[in-house]
């Protein structure tokens, strides 16, 4: 899907969402309940990770079942220095991006020599190895994880110890991330990536060394995801290997696909669906029968299956229903 130009009504829907997100802090302050800020912050950070995965998965056709590893790397890039009382934000975030990029370069060189289901399995295997690796390092908490007490310190530039400030940093990062993906997708580089997704043999035949371009795309995507991981570490204050489990990677894939692969806003919608459907469905079930909310996975699973069966193009595709295609 090349629906990269933001034309109404899609544009207006996303603009409205952005405004809504921007208003979350004042609203939560007004109703004096920080729960909504928490959820919104988690949503925004997961959305950045989903946006990064969409770059290689939705646009590039590379189904990575190990992307959560970069969230973990990014989070530990904040956690491990903090463990040694180093809270310099510039350093932490630089490590988050740098380590993610380096790891992606090495693992990408191995994984991208395979395709299809082998690629899926190898990306998953690589992320599981990172997972087990961190589990075994007792020094950084191992299985129990690492708690950090100070958020990243950026000096006088920005004070992340304030939840609202952190939230706006995350939100701004999301907007920038989407914009970066937008530019990349429409650029020459993006054309090669999308062409390789559509017909890799043909692209090679035309003269493109698709392996190199896919590798570059993979590294970019991983770096963005590592950045999201660093934000997540700051947000939750608790970093554990569980963040990189294959089920987390599965959840990211869920967000991208449910939201609509190959669309700019889809991953954001997917992240929202992932986080918000739970409380919504629980509320509905509870209203029908006390105690029924425990089984919210039943309507959730059914919604998922129906979305796959009937919604081509995911949630973002829904936004096309109003116009004739």
């Amino acid at each position, binding site marked *: *899907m*090349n629906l990269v130009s933001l034309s109404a009504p899609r544009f207006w829907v996303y603009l409205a969402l952005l405004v809504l997100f921007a208003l979350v802090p004042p609203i939560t302050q007004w109703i004096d309940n920080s729960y909504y800020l928490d959820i919104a912050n988690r949503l925004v950070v997961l959305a950045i990770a989903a946006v990064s995965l969409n770059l290689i998965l939705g646009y590039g056709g590379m189904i990575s079942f190990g992307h959560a590893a970069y969230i973990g790397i990014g989070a530990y890039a904040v956690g491990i220095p903090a463990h040694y009382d180093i809270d310099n934000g510039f350093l932490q975030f630089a490590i988050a991006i740098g380590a993610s990029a380096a790891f992606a370069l090495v693992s990408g060189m191995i994984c991208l020599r395979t395709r299809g289901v082998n690629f899926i399995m190898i990306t998953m295997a690589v992320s599981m190895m990172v997972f087990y690796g961190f589990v075994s390092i007792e020094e950084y908490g191992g299985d129990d994880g690492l708690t950090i007490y100070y958020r990243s310190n950026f000096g006088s530039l920005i004070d992340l110890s304030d939840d609202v400030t952190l939230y706006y940093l995350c939100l701004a990062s999301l907007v920038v991330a989407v914009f970066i993906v937008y*530019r*990349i997708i*429409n*650029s*020459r*580089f*993006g*054309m*090669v990536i*999308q*062409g390789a997704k*559509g*017909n890799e*043999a*043909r*692209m*090679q*035949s*035309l*003269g*493109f*060394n*698709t392996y190199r*371009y896919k590798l*570059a795309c993979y590294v970019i995507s991983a770096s963005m995801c590592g950045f999201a991981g660093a934000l997540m570490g700051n947000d939750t204050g608790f970093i554990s290997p569980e963040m990189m489990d294959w089920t987390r990677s599965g959840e990211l894939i869920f967000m991208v696909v449910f939201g609509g692969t190959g669309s700019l806003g889809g991953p954001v919608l997917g992240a929202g669906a992932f986080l918000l459907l739970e409380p919504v469905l629980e509320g509905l079930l509870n209203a029908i029968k006390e105690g029924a909310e425990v089984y919210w996975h039943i309507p959730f699973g059914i919604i998922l299956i129906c979305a796959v069966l009937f919604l081509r193009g995911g949630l973002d595709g829904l936004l096309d229903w109003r116009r004739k295609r």
Partner: protein
Amino acid sequence: MAGVILEVTDLYKSFGGVAATDHVSLDVREGEVHAIIGPNGAGKTTLISQLSGSLRPDGGRVVFRGTDITRMPPHKRALGGLARSFQITSIVHEMTIRDNVALSVQAHAGHSYRFWGNARKAKKLTEPAMEALAQVGLAEKAGELARNVSHGEHRQLEIAMALAANPTLLLLDEPMAGMGPEESVRMVEILSGLKGSKSMLLIEHDMDAVFSLADRITVLVYGKVIATGTPDEIRANDDVRKAYLGDEDG
């Protein structure tokens, strides 16, 4: 005589003991249209695939403009001036006609590690693309999604993509496959328009097209070359008659 730009020597490729390409030797001269004909299963596409690089030969040599490209990966051959069109249409269905051809232009316009500028607005890419589309008569459909146009138009797109690369040698694998009579006539016009300015190695089944376009013809049967020569020589050749054209008039 014009120089030789492609020289194939003793090329050999077998699949599970069956030789699909059985010690094939041929050459293509600059500016000529060299056609390859042969019955189904003769190994024509296998041969072209080894020339374009998507298949590795088991033995033999391919030399293009003086360079041994036998083991060169496909993208390097393309960058060296070799362009190929596919028998079974191989395009990017999710993109527009123009996008597909622009990709071909882009491959030869330096590296593509450009992340910022909008590729669809780059005149350096779109103008040559539109030229190639005009050459094959597909300019009005430039904005259509590739998956939405007809089979014949897909074949034209294949040629446009090959042309847009400004190649030294065109490898055309059954450009007229699946085309109706009018579309075939139009394709022959397009190809004869290119005669002389572009060297071509052309696989085709359509005998009218072959005999009107080709400067030389090579006949391939069961992976072996049984004859190479001018159209007249081939028409008169007994072996060819028996193996391929049958005993009726060729």
